[in-house]
């Protein structure tokens, strides 16, 4: 008899499993799964006994006392006071002054040297290049760990909790860099980061202990998409840009690789 998995039994306990009737029928037949369900229920039962300090009957009132001074006056009505007739003249004067200052500013404002703006952009680009390079380095390590994990025969579960924690940290960073790359119009970089993000998310959201088959699926995905290769090439490109900031990013370098891989 094939036993139900822990995930199915937890889902059953939460009332969220698709095959509810089938599992109920199986539980009638299988003492081992029934015992497993009892053990799961015991954990939930224990959680229900977790004490919460009673904040007291007057808690709501105390919260109100603390926040009331911070609420301030109703913000929505600030503009109403402006339309009091006595103030209209003063407000009109201020508005006229602001318009005057704006027009005068447009005429007299010295032109900002273009060189300064270009420098600022360059500095920003350089910082980004270094940051993305470091991020790719960390991602490469995670991918390498998964790809080179030693196979142990007869092993029932592979614990990836450490790698998973690092993948979790990298997901947010990756999202930020991908969005920046998109904004900057670096499609090739955005595409590689997008692929990375999907794999990182999968790793972060997998159970801590994977079956060898599930582990192999992740490994194959990394291999088939040539992710390590792409990361290395993009990283190399960034290193070159770091060394020679005036060079343009190697457009389509990764796109070319994609075609080669496919």
């Amino acid at each position: 008899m094939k036993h139900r998995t822990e995930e199915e039994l937890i889902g059953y306990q939460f009332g969220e499993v698709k095959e509810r009737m089938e599992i109920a029928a199986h539980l009638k037949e299988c003492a081992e799964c029934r015992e497993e369900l009892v053990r799961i229920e015991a954990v939930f039962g224990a959680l229900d006994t977790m004490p919460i300090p009673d904040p007291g009957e007057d808690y709501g009132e105390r919260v109100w006392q603390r926040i009331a001074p911070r609420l301030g006056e109703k913000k929505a009505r600030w503009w109403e006071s402006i339309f009091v007739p006595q103030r209209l003249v003063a407000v009109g004067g201020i508005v006229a002054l602001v318009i005057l200052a704006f027009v005068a500013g447009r005429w007299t404002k010295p032109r900002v040297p273009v060189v300064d703006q270009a420098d600022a952009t360059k500095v920003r680009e350089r910082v980004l290049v270094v940051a993305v390079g470091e991020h790719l380095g960390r991602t490469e390590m995670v991918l390498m760990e998964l790809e080179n994990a030693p196979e142990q025969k007869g092993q029932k579960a592979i614990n990836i909790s450490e790698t998973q924690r690092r993948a979790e940290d990298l997901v947010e960073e990756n999202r930020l860099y991908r969005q920046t790359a998109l904004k900057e119009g670096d499609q090739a970089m955005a595409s590689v980061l997008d692929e990375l993000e999907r794999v990182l998310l999968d790793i972060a959201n997998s159970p801590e202990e994977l079956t060898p088959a599930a582990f192999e699926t992740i490994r194959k995905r990394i291999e088939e998409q040539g992710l390590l290769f792409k990361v290395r090439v993009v990283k190399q490109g960034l290193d070159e840009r770091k060394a020679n900031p005036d060079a343009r990013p190697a457009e389509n370098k990764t796109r070319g690789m994609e075609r080669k891989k496919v």
Partner: protein
Amino acid sequence: MSLWGESRAESADLTGRGLTCLIVGMREGVGMAEEVAVSDAVAVERTLAGDRDAYRVLVERHSRTVYRMAYRMMGNTHDAEEVVQESFLRAYQKLKQFAGNANFGTWVYRIAANYAIDRLRQRNVDEARREGPSKPGEDSLEVDPLSQVRDMSPSPERLAGSAQLADRMRAALAELSPAERTAIVMRHWDGCGIEEIAAVLKSNSNATKNTVFRAVQKLRRALTPFLEGKEARAMGTEG
């Protein structure tokens, strides 16, 4: 990949429509919940019309429910109270975004859950920066005063066992990631649906189901040895 079916809850939007967990959490009858919602809607309208005291009704009515969730998330009273206050402040500031036909209780609950998860993430970052890897459950946890309060009926052994179990649970919860902790608090204690939890975690339903599963798995691993040992001891003393 996931084996779980669709959640019973409708997907929730920013106004709080479709959120069901708080109503479940309040353990109120449908009629009573509706009455509260209508009365909340009136209080919201009055607050928006400039009657600040109307907001007091909302704060006093929903503080305790938000506090319960915040305590389970944060693990200590100080942080829980801070979450409650900040959530009601934020809700007041965003009150215009809140549609009057929704349930204010579930809306402020969502704001509190979002704020609590941000605080947990920040706390983890601060702790990691300050002292490197720590061992939760040994020195970082506040001792819950209630776990030390004497009950009238149980024996000293049982009392010690309960206090120990409470400590174990707090330690096990502290070991969860912010997302896992949010998921288990919302799913188990407050009966929220997967879509509702996913909205707070800013994730999709499959990933959220995995997060709930992972949280239960970790809690199981931490608590089962203790629960089984306790049972064995109880059987030994009976026999």
